[in-house]
């Protein structure tokens, strides 16, 4: 209960600060939209020249992209820890966080949240809606529950990977330059994994399970029965990834010594 009330307190503070600078907010919305637009235009232009991408149609690829945007926006809104090393370890901010009676990771999540990223999720829903209307998919009532589960699973996969990477900074002083690399690899999961070679497919499924953010869960809604096993693994992968990363984080916090005097 305490955590929930803290969450809402941080959130209301956040909304207040953001509404202070409304033009900034608008500009951020627009540049997010442009970013999503670039990817969509890529898909649209490419399918002007081909009918199928390894057996997947244009609208199916668009659906996957739309789905991907939903967990990704949740991740971007709450797990904005790509610059954890510079922001918290190098500047010694971690000391301040650790003196407070709330779990350190939870505090950092709250401090760094960027709720405006959630708009990307709405864009994703619109993109999916467009694809669904062209694909004539039908849904059962329980698909809504599965959708929520898969979205949460994907979000936690993303979160798990990035929390683990952030935890590395407890051990080594390596710069966070591998973070942008991860964002790039994350994009791999937006396309059907069967277009890649075996090594990459294996990595995307079991090592850096980004495929569980886009293509695997989407395959269920697209009724690709051959992928169902992977689709239903999505929430499990989310829980496993997230749990492992939190354990790693806790181990790291124990080891943390502080940067300065």
């Amino acid at each position: 209960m305490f955590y929930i009330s803290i969450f809402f307190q941080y959130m209301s503070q956040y909304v207040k600060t953001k509404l202070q600078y409304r033009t900034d907010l608008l500009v951020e919305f627009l540049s997010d939209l442009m970013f999503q637009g670039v990817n969509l235009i890529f898909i649209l232009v490419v399918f002007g020249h081909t009918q199928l991408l390894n057996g997947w149609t244009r609208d199916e690829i668009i659906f996957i992209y739309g789905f991907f945007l939903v967990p990704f926006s949740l991740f971007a809104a709450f797990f904005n820890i790509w610059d954890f090393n510079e922001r918290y370890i190098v500047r010694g901010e971690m000391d301040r966080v650790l003196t407070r009676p709330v779990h350190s990771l939870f505090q950092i999540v709250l401090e760094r949240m960027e709720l405006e990223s959630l708009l990307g999720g709405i864009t994703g829903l619109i993109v999916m809606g467009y694809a669904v209307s062209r694909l004539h998919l039908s849904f059962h009532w329980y698909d809504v529950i599965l959708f929520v589960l898969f979205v949460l699973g994907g979000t936690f996969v993303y979160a798990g990977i990035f929390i683990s990477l952030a935890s590395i900074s407890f051990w080594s002083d390596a710069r966070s330059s591998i973070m942008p690399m991860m964002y790039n690899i994350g994009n791999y999961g937006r396309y059907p994994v069967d277009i890649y070679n075996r090594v990459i497919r294996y990595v995307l499924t079991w090592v850096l399970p980004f495929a569980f953010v886009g293509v695997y869960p989407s395959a269920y809604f697209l009724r690709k029965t051959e992928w169902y096993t992977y689709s239903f693994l999505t929430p499990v992968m989310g829980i496993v990834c997230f749990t492992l990363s939190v354990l790693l984080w806790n181990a790291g916090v124990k080891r943390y010594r502080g940067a300065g005097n």
Partner: protein
Amino acid sequence: MGKYIEMIRMRFLMMLAYRTNYYSGIFIYSINIGAYYFLWSAIYGGQPSIQGMTVEQMTTYVAIAWMARAFYFNNIDREIAMEIREGKVAIELIRPYNYLIMKTMQGLGEGIFRLLFFSLPGMIIVTFVFSLQFTTNVHTWGYFALSTMLSFIINSQLNLIAGMVTFFTLNGEGLLRAKRFVIDLFSGLILPISFYPEWAQHIMHYLPFQAISYIPSMIFTESFTGDAVIKGMMFQAVWCVVLIVPIYVLWKAAKRKLIIQGG
């Protein structure tokens, strides 16, 4: 002239000091190229060619476009915006050089550094992993080198313009981000211009963006031959000259504006 060459040298040495940051950068680029390699292979499927380009040409196009980007890409727009915000630009204006040329030269120093420590090793890795097609034609390499130099100039000019526009707007960050997406999309970095629908190609013909990535990459993959090479480079050269006008006008106006701000 000597002082500008010194600028290039200094920026090069500065980058050299932080070179470890770049090793992971090579992997980022290789991964990007890898993703596009498989994506394009799947897009081609069985088709021998799309818009006159074979799948080998296409994958080589993507690889060379990203590697050339390491050379022409720079952050001088952000640097200018920051120097304005922090007021450093006032000191820069007193110094006995042209601020804009100095910035471009710093960008060039960075570019040369990335070309040697980033593009070349990256290219070697990528050619080992993927089957790419490199021409052995010396002329093509020569044209490509010249064309890439022109794309550096145009990209820097656009960066200078974007940097100076932040003189006049309060929020520079959004504008600079938007500029990056526009350049990624319309320069031909992620998609060759010839893949776009007719009407879009027509519009882009009147914009400078394709001079940045599309033209040099098409030259390198020999998708442009004969007249097309010369025409492409003419297109670049014309834009290099045309872009001087807005830079000059903006710089004049910006200097006036700066005095007001400085009080």
